[in-house]
């Protein structure tokens, strides 16, 4: 994941030859690497997508971190801390991947903090009870996995490699959430009700994580052509629903959709309409926690400034001392 100078294309022979080489590589399912020529729009699409993905990992730490101090046992607390730490790691892998396209880390963070780049709308919902930690692991990480597994074969090498690493780590996230919900579901009546309530609240927002329906998805077709994306939003959403239905049964919990039923003919589940108005509202910044998440993120960044500055000053001083020592020797 080394950075690379974006290759500019002021070549005597123009870009036609480069475009052909790029198209051929994508068609042959080869990976595009940082120093290869690539169309400007491909680069811009990747920066936007990878940045948004990285921001989601970082912002996604907040709703769960909310429960670390109140985890019901030391075991659960250790697990939750490990998970939140993983999400920080995922953000860093992805920022590194975005940087290989020539966009600096600080620039990406600036854009997050100023709202010019987005993060997944799912993290603008609050975690009201301990059961939400379970519902997030099962449903939110579950949806993320469904989205991310095909990204391991994305045409851009550094992004694909980051996704391989991330997917390996995600399965623990999903399983711990499922186990947590199972314990609650099999617990007291109140615990069971708490688990059900969490699933009721997280189910629909999780389905929205796959993005708008295919006929309204602005960038999908081009991304599929570039093999950044391998499956459409609706395809992945359907896959996720079909996976979740039997898992919910094993949990002894229901999914909050009266229209959810097996369709023999399609060999898939039918499910009810998604409230896209809500999705758009949350995306616009009007979700329950948008303000809180970004304020918290900015504060963490500002409050950490002195650490970054001190470390940089220490490094500068140290390297100066080493150089002088070198000269004296």
């Amino acid at each position, binding site marked *: *994941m080394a950075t690379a100078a974006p290759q500019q294309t002021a070549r005597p022979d123009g870009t036609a030859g480069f475009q052909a080489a790029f198209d051929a590589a994508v068609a042959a399912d080869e990976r595009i690497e940082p120093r290869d020529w690539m169309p400007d729009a491909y680069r811009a699409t990747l920066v936007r997508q990878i940045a948004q993905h990285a921001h989601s990992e970082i912002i996604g730490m907040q709703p769960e971190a909310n429960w670390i101090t109140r985890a019901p046992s030391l075991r659960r607390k250790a697990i939750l801390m490990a998970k939140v730490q993983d999400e920080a790691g995922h953000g860093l892998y992805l920022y590194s991947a975005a940087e290989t396209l020539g966009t600096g880390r*600080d620039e990406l963070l600036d854009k997050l903090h100023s709202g010019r780049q987005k993060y997944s709308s799912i993290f603008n919902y609050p975690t009201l009870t301990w059961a939400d930690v379970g519902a997030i692991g099962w449903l939110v990480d579950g949806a993320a996995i469904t989205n991310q597994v095909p990204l391991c074969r994305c045409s851009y090498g550094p992004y694909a490699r980051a996704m391989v690493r991330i997917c390996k780590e995600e399965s623990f996230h999903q399983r711990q959430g499922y186990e947590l919900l199972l314990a609650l579901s099999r617990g007291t009546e109140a615990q069971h009700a708490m688990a059900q309530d969490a699933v009721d609240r997280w189910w629909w927002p999780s389905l929205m994580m796959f993005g708008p329906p295919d006929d309204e998805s602005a960038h999908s077709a081009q991304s599929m052509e570039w093999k950044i994306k391998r499956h459409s939003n609706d395809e992945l959403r359907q896959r996720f629903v079909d996976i979740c239905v039997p898992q919910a049964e094993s949990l002894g919990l229901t999914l909050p959709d009266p229209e959810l039923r097996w369709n023999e003919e399609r060999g898939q589940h039918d499910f009810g309409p998604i409230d896209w108005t809500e999705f758009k509202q949350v995306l616009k910044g009007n979700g329950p926690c948008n303000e809180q998440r970004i304020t918290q993120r900015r504060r963490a960044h500002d409050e950490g400034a002195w650490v970054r500055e001190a*470390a940089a000053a220490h*490094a500068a001083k*140290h390297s100066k001392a080493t150089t002088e020592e070198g000269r004296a020797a």
Partner: protein
Amino acid sequence: MSETPSSTSSGQEWPLWEVFVRSRRGLAHTHAGSLHAPDAELALRNARDLYTRRGEGVSLWVVPSAAITASSPDEKDPFFEPSADKPYRHPTFYEIPEGVKHL
């Protein structure tokens, strides 16, 4: 391997390091990814936290990204061409009578 990423609000971005991990004794270090750190010592610590949270490594190298010189992708073909027309460098180039063993 590159230009420093374009500069930024604080203008204080820590330099970029490439991380190499030896997953087991007996294996070579392999490139795992990159990270930012103010100096080599912190780069190593960050690399431990970022790339070896699950026992993925027994040894780490961190190298300033700027210190890496890479072959150019544009010259890929001519640069590696000399090896393409030398099939006699491969053992399969040679015909050996059937039945000859340990060869």
